[in-house]
């Protein structure tokens, strides 16, 4: 250790570098909601399902949304299972997810 004291070395980055996902494109936005099917993704936080149900009521009544289907995450702290994502993709046209609180 002592003999290397005179040598100048760069300090190391402790972050492990960039971990970002390669695909960072948002899905194309919708032009209108009328006639579409909404998926409600409940993250299992208290009252999330109640708020999402209220949003669905509004979407159907005032925005012409055709149908709504509810889905639930198994645990709020972890990502949605891939199989559930695929199911929502098959059954819905757009998703409302919540509630971050």
């Amino acid at each position, binding site marked *: *250790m002592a003999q*290397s*004291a005179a040598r*100048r*070395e*760069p*300090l*190391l*980055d*402790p*972050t*492990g570098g960039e*971990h*970002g*996902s*390669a*695909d*960072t494109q*948002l*899905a*194309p*936005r*919708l*032009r*209108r*909601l*009328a006639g579409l099917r909404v998926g409600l*993704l409940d993250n*299992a*936080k*208290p*009252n*999330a*399902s*109640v*708020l*999402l149900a*209220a*949003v669905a009521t*509004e*979407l159907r009544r*005032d*925005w*012409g949304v055709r149908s709504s289907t509810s889905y639930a995450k198994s*645990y*709020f*702290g*972890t*990502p949605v299972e891939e199989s559930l994502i695929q199911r*929502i993709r098959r059954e*819905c*046209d*757009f*998703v*409302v*997810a*919540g*509630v*971050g*609180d």
Partner: protein
Amino acid sequence: MPTVSVCTDAFMVPARAMARAYGFPGFEFATVPHPVASLTLPQISKRARELMPELVRILGGQGPVTSPGPVVPGLRSAGSEATEATREGSTSGAPGLARAEASAIITAQEYYSDRGWTDGLPVVPVTESDLRRFLAATARDPEDIVLAMPHLNRHCTVRTAAINAALAGCRPEYFPVVLAAWASLAKEGYATKGVWQSTTGSAPLLVVNGPIRGEIDLNCRGGVFGPGFRANATIGRALRLTAINCFGLRPHELDQATQATPAKYTACIGENEEDSPWSGLHTDHGFAASDSTVTAMSVRSVIHIEARHTAVPEQLGLDLAGTLSRTGALVHETISGCLVLSPEHATVFARAGWSKADVRQFVYEHAGRTREELAAVGKDAISRSTRWRLPADHPDAMPDRHSETNASGLIRVLNSPEALLVVVAGADNAGVSAVVETFGPRGGPPPITLIDASRRTVTDEH
């Protein structure tokens, strides 16, 4: 698929940090005023109505209400600082060598501090040659993943764990303990489930057993939870610096802890096997006394017990049970814990012929609250959906598992004697112990992990 996320305004900072972690720096959230959890149905309907224009705008939908139209992706976040160069201090051959080195160290401190690569305390500057000494202390490949947090889209390699261990002030010979700690945390499971960013504000606690304690001077005696011992202080801190630097779990960003706990700085203790009347935690679970192990726990708090007054095991047992069953920790139906008994308290039990299993059984049977006590704090039932405790008159309430079965009127807070671990630590000088409140109902075997001391073939030793 076009998706809009609904989030309360109190959580916009971590929400944006999550979006950045997934590569969507400009992601827009539909916000509602915090809180949602405590609202009534009419209040929720009102929030939903108010939310709609923003929610629909983010989706891009046009409708009866005039909306601003398709969303333009938001601004990229400011991102990392522009300057990359290290600001090295002047060390140009001044006669006062100590002064010159001190200024270089301070310069390095400012470099790390400016980038947020610290827990707030000074860190130890780390270079590639320092890193080599840490990597030489393990047989594992530097690119091996020690822990992945898929929900944050991040993972930590052996190399990054080593840089942060060095930064925390570890000696290279501590590094196998740090690696075993990560392996134990992976087994324990809560770190990978988002608990480290939770409002709860928990922290990992490490319990070390076996000969490694003596080899690296890891304290297991007086002041075991306190300062003064480099191994204890820096091994625990290595986890925190990794959490901050590698996983991005900074307070006010992805770490959303409402208050947190001092244990977040560092929490690593040795079991005082030498002064314990019983065998060590690791030998209770099939390891040899000559094995060195780390056991990680996610903890809410470490509660202090002062019971100098008694040598009656039942009295001491009830004191421990009463502390463990405090209602403040009863978020879920049941809790789990670890008794960290001082040698004196352990001896009170052992003298009366109690084994560790006897202590666990007694505390299991007596750690509870009456229905009335739970009702008084609004925790006398559990939620049908989350299984969190709530008042029995809540629309989502269902009876807890114990409501029909208790004979003595006591609702037990542990699901089994195995939900309670017993460890002996501290000085053999007083009737002072601790009840550690751990995460989860638990009851299965604890995540005891062998410390692998096998080294890499060292080729570049100076």
